[in-house]
């Protein structure tokens, strides 16, 4: 009997597997693409100017000599290589090597960097720490106990993970040869935003970017959508993991059980097995601390993800869906949840393994829970999804949304805004949207259409975008050919300009418009950043200004201004900048002899809001454990000669100038 059931279920599963593998399209092998036709000459740009523009948009700005290299290689070929994104980046590989988290499996990562709240609760449950430890006077002792516990359990504080996550973003943007891949990773992460300010999602954010975003950044939109929809970071950030069919509603599980009702023996056995399982799960849950149990949400759908899926990820706010559609999509996605990792979830994982016979589906960290999936019929955007669709139903919903004309238009608009200008011309949006629909959301194809559009090269588009804080910092590092050995202070500077990395709390991501970045506080931070960087007062960053000019020392300060402005902003019209700055540097004050400079300003650790949920400790206390340690190896700021200070100041002014904020 048992055997028959087993075979039947396996057969169904196998069939489903075969079906899905047919549906997921094989990766497009490199078909010969017709040579790109780039209409930059029509827009009045020289080849060098076009290369500089391309480096501003398809890359994080030009490195020294890069305009020449792109011209030599041919712009068309450079673009194809960027689209292919498989250039070796030895420098980057070397820089990323010490960051051990980047290559961890998700099981390893979650076991090593558990949520601090959960860990503390566990320590509390294990009797390692008690409430009397939290008294102010016992803090040092408590700290020691917890550190010992961390060591004993072999776990590390999550801040280490976040610090590596943030470091790799800067390093990749500065050093990767596959620049477009990084630009698009930044773009798509922001489009499908999740945030480390959400404690549940925090430990998954690195995996999310690495496994869901980057591999699909130049792929198909549907793959991106599916990867984000099923990733724990998104499932937790927008609460889908806890969305389930309401109490008493038919679920995939109850349905599949009903199917076997006709055979009383099977039914009986199944019921017994389920009852046993329920009891065991109950027992497992009883082990959880009271506080977590109390916070356990009730059964029922949670609309958050379904709403943002349509409003922010696909159709756009005016995409023609209703609140009814939101509810129906949420129902279709009930049961889309997170596979439990972590060391103490072993028993639970065993149960789930057995549950696969009853419709539990695990794909990496994604878990489909048949007991939580609402098995009823749904009506979404005018389409009927018949009852009993199971996990595949959610996939069909994603198919439908990914192929929708409103999605095509929405994604086309956002890409055009990122790559061309804040209010992109409708003609370009139209063309990109058409490409999206014709190619099934092929991002490469859209990028090819983008660079072959006159709008991309037009006069209106050149220097029209204001760099985001991240882009500003990275483009400055690239322009200076800087050696970045520590990113801690750079991160503070990006944060001061208004873009704490991976910490945009709203699911909208950061707005990709100038007025979002240009405000009084941020602008002053940008100028300060330019001066601090140029004068060597950002720890962990080194560069050689004279090397940029092949060790030709400028003969005069005017000469320095002219030379370095052109080096840092190649192929730009710098007449305005030079006209305004020349009289200034000619002022005798500017070259006053000064032989020393003040010590470096140490950026204070910012007061990142830490929100810790479900644990028996106040959050201030947790914060103590999350604080970053100071940058190791206290390097002092370089002592510069007055000549060097003068040159550095000139460079600082260039980096803080209005022109350098533009791209």
């Amino acid at each position, binding site marked *: 009997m048992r055997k028959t059931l087993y075979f039947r279920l396996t057969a169904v599963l196998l069939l489903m597997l075969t079906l899905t593998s047919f549906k997921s399209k094989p990766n497009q092998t490199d078909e010969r693409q017709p040579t790109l036709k780039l209409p930059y000459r029509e827009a009045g740009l020289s080849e060098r100017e076009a290369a500089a523009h391309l480096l501003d948009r398809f890359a994080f700005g030009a490195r020294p000599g890069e305009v020449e290299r792109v011209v030599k290689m041919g712009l068309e070929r450079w673009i194809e290589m960027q689209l292919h994104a498989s250039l070796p980046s030895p420098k980057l590989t070397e820089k990323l090597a010490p960051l051990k988290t980047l290559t961890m499996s998700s099981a390893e990562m979650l076991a090593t960097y558990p949520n601090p709240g959960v860990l503390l609760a566990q320590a509390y449950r294990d009797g390692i720490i008690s409430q009397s430890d939290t008294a102010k006077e016992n803090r040092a002792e408590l700290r020691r106990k917890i550190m010992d516990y961390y060591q004993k359990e072999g776990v590390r504080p999550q801040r280490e993970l976040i610090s590596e996550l943030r470091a790799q973003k800067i390093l990749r943007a500065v050093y990767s040869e596959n620049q477009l891949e990084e630009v698009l990773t930044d773009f798509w992460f922001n489009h499908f935003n999740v945030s480390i300010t959400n404690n549940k999602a925090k430990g998954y954010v690195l995996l999310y970017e690495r496994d869901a975003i980057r591999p699909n950044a130049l792929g198909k939109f549907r793959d991106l959508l599916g990867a984000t929809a099923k990733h724990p970071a998104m499932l937790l950030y*927008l609460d889908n993991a806890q969305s389930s069919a309401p109490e008493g509603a038919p679920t995939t599980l109850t349905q599949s059980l009903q199917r076997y009702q006709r055979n009383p023996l099977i039914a009986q056995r199944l019921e017994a097995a389920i009852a046993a399982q329920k009891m065991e799960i109950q027992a497992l849950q009883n082990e959880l601390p009271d*506080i977590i149990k109390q*916070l356990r949400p009730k059964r029922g759908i949670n609309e958050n993800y379904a709403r943002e899926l349509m409003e922010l990820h696909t159709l756009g706010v005016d995409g023609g869906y209703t609140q009814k559609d939101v509810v129906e999509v949420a129902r279709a996605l009930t049961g889309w949840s997170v596979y439990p990792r972590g060391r103490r979830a072993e028993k639970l994982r065993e149960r789930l393994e057995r549950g696969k016979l009853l419709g539990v589906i695990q794909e990496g960290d994604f878990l489909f829970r048949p007991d939580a999936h609402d098995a009823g019929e749904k009506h979404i955007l005018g389409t009927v999804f018949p009852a009993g669709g199971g996990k595949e139903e959610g996939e069909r919903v994603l198919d439908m949304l990914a192929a929708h004309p409103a999605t095509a238009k929405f994604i086309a608009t956002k890409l055009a805004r990122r790559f061309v200008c804040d209010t992109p011309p409708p003609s370009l949006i139209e063309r990109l949207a058409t490409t999206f629909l014709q190619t099934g959301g092929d991002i490469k194809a859209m990028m090819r259409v983008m660079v072959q559009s006159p709008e991309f090269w037009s006069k209106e588009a050149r220097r029209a975008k204001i760099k985001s804080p991240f882009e500003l910092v990275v483009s400055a590092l690239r322009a200076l050919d800087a050696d970045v050995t520590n990113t801690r202070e750079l991160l503070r500077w990006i944060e001061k300009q*208004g873009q704490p990395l991976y910490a945009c709390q709203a699911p909208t991501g950061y707005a990709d418009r100038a007025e979002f970045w240009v405000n009084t506080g941020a602008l002053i931070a940008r100028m300060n950043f330019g001066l601090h960087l140029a004068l060597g007062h950002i720890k962990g960053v080194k560069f050689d200004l004279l090397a940029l000019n092949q060790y030709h020392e400028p003969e005069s300060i005017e000469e320095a201004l002219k030379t370095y402005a052109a080096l840092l902003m190649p192929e730009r019209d710098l007449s305005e900048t030079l006209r305004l700055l020349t009289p200034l540097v000619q002022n005798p004050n500017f070259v006053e002899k000064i032989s020393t400079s003040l010590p470096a300003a140490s950026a204070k650790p910012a007061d990142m809001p830490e929100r810790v949920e479900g644990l028996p400790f106040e959050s201030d206390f947790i914060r103590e454990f999350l604080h970053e340690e100071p940058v190791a190896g206290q390097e002092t700021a370089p002592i510069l000669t007055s000549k060097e*200070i003068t040159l550095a100041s000139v460079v600082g002014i260039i980096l803080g100038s209005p022109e350098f904020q533009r791209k």
Partner: protein
Amino acid sequence: MKSSGLALVAIGLGGTPKFLKRALGATVPHQRKILVTIFQRGGMDGMMAVAPYTDKHLQAWRPCLALPAPNTSAEALLELDGYFGLHPAFQPLLPLFEQKCLAIVHGVGSPEPTRSHFDQQDYMETGTPGKKGTPDGWLNRLSKKLGKEASPFRAVAMTSVLPRSLYGEAPALAIPNLADFGLKAPGTMPIAIAAGQGFEALYEQTSQQMLREVGQESFEAIKLLQKLDVRNYRPQQGAEYPRSPLGNSLKQIAQLIKADVGVEIAFAESNGWDTHVQQGTTRGLFAQRARDLALAIAAFWKDVEPYQDRIVLMTMTEFGRTLAENGSGGTDHGRASCLFVLGTAVDGGKVHGKVPPLAVENLEDGRDLPVTTDFRAVFAEVAGKHFGIEDDGALFPGWAGKRFPLLKSK
């Protein structure tokens, strides 16, 4: 090492900055209204802050945490109205309550039942409970309603990262420390001056309009702050701020207000209200947070005395806590809490709102003080009446509730 950076712009200030002239327009500066908000992160235990001491159930829910009724012991609650008592650590606020400029609203919270800090703070700050995708914060939408021409200091948060409340299209400043605001060169003075002049010339004349306008404003703002001499600020009327992050934030807000730089919306944070463990009674975590909050608010109110008619101060917190104390001498995440509203036009000296008898059947999910007033009803009343804004839908999209009467009509 004294100061690590040097303020750059050493040029004197000639007349009123352009942005202020524009912002003020025809209105007299002394009539601009100011809203000061304090977010108590972590979820303040409203039942401990303002306790219905006559309710016979309270002692049963909280054998260790309930404080004795007013005038019964040295550690007793402070009498408010014969029904509610104020936690003694809030003592500095009592005179304001007695002068009838401080009101308390009890039973305030979000209609969404989540007990997650993240979600509930998010909902309170966006002003759209249940909707996470709202791109902007309610204070930013308020800022937009105050008109186009604004000072760069119109909306200021004394935080290092802009709070969700101020996300949005209207410009908003996050300044953890006024003394750090300005151009800083790590180099030496002459270079610093030169660099400052360089930037000013560049931004004043750049052809990119947005950079030019904001750039000009930035330099004007820097000069203004320089004139303030923020490091040597002396509070007036003998106000003594607690030496705490909140004390420092409110002190700097007072400074900006008194400098008439065009502040209309100010935001400060008070952390550490998540008292799961050892909440304490008259001593302990809660008392320490409460004392800090009360001392800071009382000092602020004293310091801005000549400006009081223009200011309303309001506290908020994402949720209250469980009515029952837990096994570790604390309370867990709950539903409704209370908030304080301070101002000369406030219907003060009263505990507003509805707190039902604390029998289990009256509680939300049988455990928490129920939300009887939507926080939007209070926020809309305070911001709306104070600034004369009628359109609640602009501040709280999708909300069709009624304002909670709290401010006297003018």
